[in-house]
């Protein structure tokens, strides 16, 4: 146990010393490096200044040339625009041109189809009246009067026929009691009488 404790103490001392050495070394190196860098910086700064001045000169030359070219291009474009009267972007785009042509064709086709269908419906509906729309009061009155007259005629016909049939049946039932003979002969006579009297009734009415 004592031996292990001693070894531990020794190790600790050794590590502590090494750290101090490292830190001291670093400080020394840093100083040296800084001094070197400063020297380099000074030299480099001079170089940068020289390069900057040279670049500025070059840029000025380039700007002069580009401005001239741009002016020339602008002038040329203006001339082309006025001549063609089309924006260069749309005239050169094939996709939009194709789409435009296609939509025009579809529109024309749809219009033709609609007119054809309308014509077919007009022919199919020949003579049909879907609703009664009176243009003015006199027309409405005439239509209404006509319809009411038709209804009255029909009702009068129904009433006449119902009354005639009823009267004929009553008479036949009365006559049946008075007629002599067998059942079959009696039915025949009743039929004949009823037919003749029925026709007379209708004519009289």
């Amino acid at each position, binding site marked *: 146990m004592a031996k292990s404790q001693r070894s531990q103490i020794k190790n600790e001392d050794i590590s502590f010393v090494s750290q101090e050495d490292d830190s001291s070394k670093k400080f020394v190196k840093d100083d040296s490096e800084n001094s070197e860098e400063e020297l380099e910086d000074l030299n480099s700064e001079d170089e940068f200044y020289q390069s900057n001045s040279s670049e500025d000169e070059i840029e000025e030359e380039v700007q002069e040339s580009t401005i001239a070219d741009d002016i020339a291009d602008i002038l040329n474009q203006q001339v082309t625009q006025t001549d063609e009267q089309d924006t260069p972007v749309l005239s050169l785009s094939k996709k939009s041109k194709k789409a435009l042509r296609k939509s025009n064709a579809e529109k024309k086709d749809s219009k033709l189809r609609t007119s054809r269908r309308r014509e077919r419906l007009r*022919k199919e509906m020949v*003579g049909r009246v879907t609703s009664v729309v009176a243009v003015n009061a006199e027309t409405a009155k005439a239509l209404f009067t006509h319809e009411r007259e038709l*209804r009255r005629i*029909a*009702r009068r016909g*129904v009433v006449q026929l*119902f009354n005639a049939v*009823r009267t004929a049946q009553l008479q036949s039932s009365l006559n049946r009691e008075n007629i002599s003979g067998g059942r079959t002969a009696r039915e025949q006579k*009743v039929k004949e009488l*009823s037919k003749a009297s029925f026709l007379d009734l209708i004519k009289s009415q």
Partner: protein
Amino acid sequence: MGGIGKKRVKKRTHLKADPIQEAAIPKSMVIRSGASEVGRSLSLLTRDLRHMMEPHTAIRLKERKANKIKDYLTMAGPLGVTHLLVLSRTDNNANLRIIRAPRGPSLHFRIHEYMLNKDVRRLQKNPKSPTTEFLTPPLLVMNHFNQNSSKDSPHEALLTTTFQNMFPPISVQHTNINSVKRVLLLNRRDDGYIDLRHFIISTKPVGISRPIRHLLKGEKKDSDIPDLHNVRDISDYVLHGDGISGAASDSEIEEDATVEIDRPVPTKTEENLLSASQLLKPKQQAIKLIEIGPRMTLELIKITEDAMGGKVLYHSHVHKSKEEIKQQDNFHEQSRALKEKRKKEQDENVRRKRENKKRRKDQKKEGITSSNKNDDSGNEGSSAYSDTE
């Protein structure tokens, strides 16, 4: 109790239809010329006309484009169809043709105007959908139609007769008035057009005021009892009605629209209220007509003698002088003679070919007998050879 294996038949309940009477009832077909080519509107009109012509018509007849009028005329005989109503259309006109099957005559009409059932229904405030009213034929009412055949206009009698014969006649003895549910009106206008209208007949009791009618209606159904909690005295309700101070409603029954009908079996209330003599008295009923369509305005254009083609008996636009009529008669006479001649020739050809065929068959039989003889001789030779061995 019936024979073994036979189904029981009640003679008095399940009445057999008399075949003679059945054959006398006119039957009809409503046909579209060219099937669906006439268009949707006329197809709907066809359906409406079929309902109008019920019950003696083909309701679910399906035409095909390949069908011709000749096909229907051929089948009209076996089926007992007496009238064909053919609807067709050109670009400017809708046409109706009434053909008396199987041999004519044929009446051609132009449909000047028409309204479908659904168009008529849309006009009404309270439209009615018929159901059982189509089980019995309609009553035909014709106005301003000429019965007698006159020299100036012989076609009018034919027109009248054709329309009358499209529907079964009314039997005076056996007609039950309550079974007549519909009325078909044909009205001839001064300008020659024919108006066609179709109504349902409904009857209502007359002589009873509206408040009392409402009370009687409540007797049958509890939900129909009117609300009387605001009425202090029953006399106020009976005299003035519910809220309306004696105003006559626009559906008041006109004077000439009443009909006497045998009183049905009286209800208990009626037995209690009415005396014996009143029970025996016939009840007054009011006739009310409800239109169900279709509406048509027809114009008679042409009448031909045959079902298809033939001599023109009447034309409303083309008028011919006597010489032209005689010329036309000669033409038809010559056509008939030529047709008979050709038919005779064809019959002769058929007879000749039949005889030739019979003769050729006889010759073939003689040939067969000779070949049999040859076979016999061959057999004899073979037997001789075996004898030598």
